[in-house]
């Protein structure tokens, strides 16, 4: 009886996610165009990735995404959460950063494509208003295009991280902070020595999620540049899509996705282990 209750969920997930995942690993060892029968070619797909200049560029872009996601939306979220707490107008500022969370990545991508347009875009319009004689082409020059998209991503993601840090700050007990103040510690010292260490669990989650999510970014890049021009703004997630569904290099695409997944799992390993450990305690 108990298995009957699990069956629908289990069957759907195993048939459409777990088994396909294993199959995907299997395909990554084949040369396959999706139509003719797959040809086994061992590790050649993986080896090809190391000599593929497009994949190298895409790796570099992925690293840029990860690093700057940690700097802007993650660290930015912490800074905003700390400074906005207890401020007059706190709720107003919080809801401002909240707005982008209610729309899709596709919408964000389109809005920022308009903002960053060269001739009729808002940003260059503001530059002209300020009398700055610059007219950058945000989405076609390299590496500016990657940074422009990270900016759009920050606009959407900062609110999420802010909410998490606000939650964390809310759970810190008053006593140790008051003790600090009595001992004569200033605000900065209180933050560094008491608040920040107590935020550690949330910080871990935010950092893990920020890294994992920047490896998964797809929609924003697809909408804003399609990975172009000439694959210059691709990340691994986009390269996989292009190799698989535009060039029909199914085996190669599968290999890229396996590498992508390995990196993601590696990053979240510590976090998953902690989670399962805590859950085991419950069982």
């Amino acid at each position, binding site marked *: *009886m*108990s298995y009957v*209750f*699990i069956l*629908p*969920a*289990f069957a*759907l*997930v195993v048939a459409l*996610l*777990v088994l*396909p*995942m294993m*199959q995907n690993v299997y395909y990554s060892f084949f040369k396959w165009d*999706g139509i003719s029968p797959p040809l086994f070619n061992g590790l050649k797909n993986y080896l090809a990735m190391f000599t593929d200049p497009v994949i190298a560029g895409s790796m570099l872009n992925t690293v840029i995404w990860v690093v700057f996601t940690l700097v802007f939306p993650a660290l930015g979220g912490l800074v*905003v959460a700390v*400074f906005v707490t207890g*401020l007059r107008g706190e709720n107003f500022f919080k809801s*401002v*950063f909240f*707005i982008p969370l*209610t*729309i*899709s*990545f*596709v*919408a964000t991508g*389109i*809005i920022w*494509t*308009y*903002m960053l*347009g060269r001739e*009729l875009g*808002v940003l260059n*319009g503001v530059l002209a208003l300020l009398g700055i004689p610059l007219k950058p082409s945000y989405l076609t020059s390299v590496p500016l295009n990657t940074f422009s998209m990270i900016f759009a991503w920050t606009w959407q993601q900062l609110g999420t991280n802010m*909410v*998490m840090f606000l*939650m964390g700050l809310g759970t810190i007990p008053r006593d140790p902070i008051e003790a600090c103040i009595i001992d004569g510690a200033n605000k900065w010292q209180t933050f560094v020595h008491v608040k920040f260490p107590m935020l550690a669990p949330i910080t871990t*989650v*935010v950092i893990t999620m920020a890294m994992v999510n920047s490896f*998964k970014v*797809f*929609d924003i890049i697809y*909408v804003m540049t399609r990975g172009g021009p000439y694959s210059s703004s691709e990340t691994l997630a986009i390269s*996989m*899509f292009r190799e*698989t*569904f535009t060039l029909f290099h199914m085996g190669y695409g*599968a290999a*890229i996705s396996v590498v*992508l*997944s390995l990196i*993601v*799992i590696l990053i*979240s390993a510590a976090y*998953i282990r902690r989670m399962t450990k805590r*859950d*085991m305690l419950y*069982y």
Partner: protein
Amino acid sequence: MTRWLRKAPVYAVLVLLTLMWLLPVVSSFLVSFKSSEDFVSQTFYQLPTQIYFFKNLVTVIAQYRLLDNLGNSLMYSAAGTVVVIIAASMAGFSIVRLRPKFNFALFLIIYSGTLFPFQMYLIPVYRLFNTLNLYDTRTGMVLIYSAICIPFSLFVYRGFYTTIPREIEEAAKLDGCGPARTFISVFLPQSLAPTAVVALFQATWIWNDLLFGMVLSRAQSVRPIMVAVATMTGYGGGNIPWIMTAVIFTSIPTILLFVVLRKFFIQGMVLSITS
């Protein structure tokens, strides 16, 4: 006064950030109210010479047949969320309370579905759907959306059901309720909070999906809304006032859902990250 002065730099930065965050929102709305002529001849901050939003909307709906895609996505969001609520609440109840053998292993297998990037499933699912004739069908879309949403939803229900006191269940058992009766008359009526969290997050996720829609559908009668909106841009950027009108129009359902279920958002965030 001195206190205010000390806070001044903080306010300055926050106001600057606020402007940066609101500028895209305001300019997008403004553009959607402009005609193509106004858009080309004006600068971004000028007001439109006439209110063109509804004309843009009518044009977009007629030219891109957006209502088809809107209907599709409405169906996927509704059907997918219902399937997920049923499947995940049942599984959560079983894992927490019926305790089958290997319940933790079963949970981990299902939960592993959220760990990997979606790219890991695309090729095999695309192939599987082709052999099962599910490619480019609405049934196929509902199935894959449900499967993707189950792991997180199961997590939500499982977490919630551990907080329901066992005494209630024992009482039901004494009254002669079997597991099915206990689930329906004891657990389900108390499941409002997790169900709201699941509905908010999963309906929004399905509505906003681009990747699976692009890979698993082709026909206008199957393609979800975000794919339709994303392909409006093309390489040249397309007609910005039209596209922006479409963006605003197609964002309304998720924004409404968000407003209605607002208080469950934080709860869902807590669950999704402390998970």
